[in-house]
């Protein structure tokens, strides 16, 4: 099996991947307008253009917004079907991810299910943020 496709951080996204390595989901928000949190990372606010933005640790909580279950797995992803999901974070932004810790079936993956982030180490530099069904 070929090695999994992994991200190559850029200076503008380094804080995010460093956060994942440290077990923290980091978002950005503007300090000049009320636009709120945004994702993917960039060094300016997509709502007002201000460069005065800050990085902060997000709650890691969200809900399963939508997904497909890929029945033709990409060669680096193994041989079993897997869900490619979009999670809506409690802070507002949506992000793509995989859902782990449950069967990859429609029955186990109801929309709007509460999910929590978990980090999976891939190598010394990269940990991927996955989500699992929230406990309790």
């Amino acid at each position, binding site marked *: 099996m070929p090695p*999994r*496709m*992994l*991200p*190559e*951080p*850029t200076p503008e*996204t380094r804080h995010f*991947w460093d956060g994942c390595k440290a077990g923290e989901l980091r978002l950005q928000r503007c300090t000049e307008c009320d636009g709120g949190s*945004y*994702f*993917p990372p960039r060094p300016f606010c*997509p709502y007002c253009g201000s460069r005065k933005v800050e990085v902060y640790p997000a709650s890691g909580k969200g809900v399963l*917004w*939508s*997904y*497909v*279950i*890929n*029945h*033709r*797995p*990409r060669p680096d*992803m193994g041989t079993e*079907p*897997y869900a*490619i*999901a*979009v999670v809506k974070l409690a802070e507002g*932004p*949506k*992000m*793509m*991810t*995989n859902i782990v810790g449950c069967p990859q079936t*429609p029955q186990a993956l109801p*929309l709007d299910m509460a999910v929590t982030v978990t980090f999976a180490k891939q190598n010394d530099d990269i940990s*991927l943020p996955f989500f699992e069904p929230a406990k309790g």
Partner: protein
Amino acid sequence: MKPKTIAVVGAAETTRMGRIPDMSVIGLHADAALNALADCGLKPSDIDGVATAGASPVDLAHYLGITPTYADGTSVGGCSFMLHVRHAAAAINEGLCNTVLITHGESGRSRVGAGRFGGSASSLAGQFEMPYGPSGPPTMFTIPVLRYMKTYGVTEEDLAMVAVVQREWAAKNPHAVYRAPLTMEEYLAAPLVADPLSRYDCVPVVAGAQAIIVARPDRAPKGRPGVRVRAHRASYNYDNQEGDGLQTGISTFAAALWQEAGVRPDDIDVASIYDDYPTMVLAQANDLGLIPGNDLARFCRVTIGEKRFPVNTWGGMLSAGQPGGHAGGLNGISEAVLQLQHRAGERQVKDARLAVTTGYGMTMYRYGGTAAAAILERVE
């Protein structure tokens, strides 16, 4: 007629469609181009503008021996060709050129082993999408489908009507790759590709090309009705990928489109709606205002299911196939032109006078970021 009127004066496809192992991609473009020129009685030397995506418009000019004063290589996925029409109209009105050839072609099989989907590992898609396993458009564009079904109360059986009825149209199109009837049972039993999508939700990739010629209406052959572009609108990155993917950029301009055209959704006789997946047909139709009360389920079961309103009358890409790579998008325009000229053979919609065509495409970060639509009108 308004002084700035632009028309589609010629339309054609490759002599063959489907599997064409003996022709190169540029050869397919040229074959469709020569057929479109013959269709409206023009010669290559009459063309002074060239537009295409995938291939270079200048390579195409060279291959055809044309020396244009205008070239457009806008390449934003399935919407590219709708935009070529828009740009050609503006260029003609600005005096940059008079007669524009627009082509689209791909050798479906040549995509095997093509560059990796999703761009480099340091791009936004490479960092924030590809690590999670998308393997192509069916696993990327389609993520909102489940949300769509939940929000609008649409079932698999409803969505099936789009594919099943387009197959009925395809049976009347000699160039469609799938022409055998598709039953609801077959649709529902088909192998899953990206659950909830199965085989018949995804377009078959074929070899082939289409070409159209855009010019002033007086370039149309004598004795044949012209097809005037009555209104045209486009939208890019309309919600910065922060919406829910259930609407398209068409929602931003639909009111202006109808106003410019001076007609209403009720007036439309035939529609070509970009059908990369059944849900996208519904999203665009809804954004255009073709679905009263946003009742998508009824639109599927009654409006489409009972053929009260003809949509994608050549079978759509779902049945007729999509010349791969840069996605179709020109075939819907070609079909609308044929319908309005009353040259659509067995599948002709009686007395068709007004058509709406759309394009949708370019996966950005999660879903399609580009949309365009035009109202076309038969001119006697």
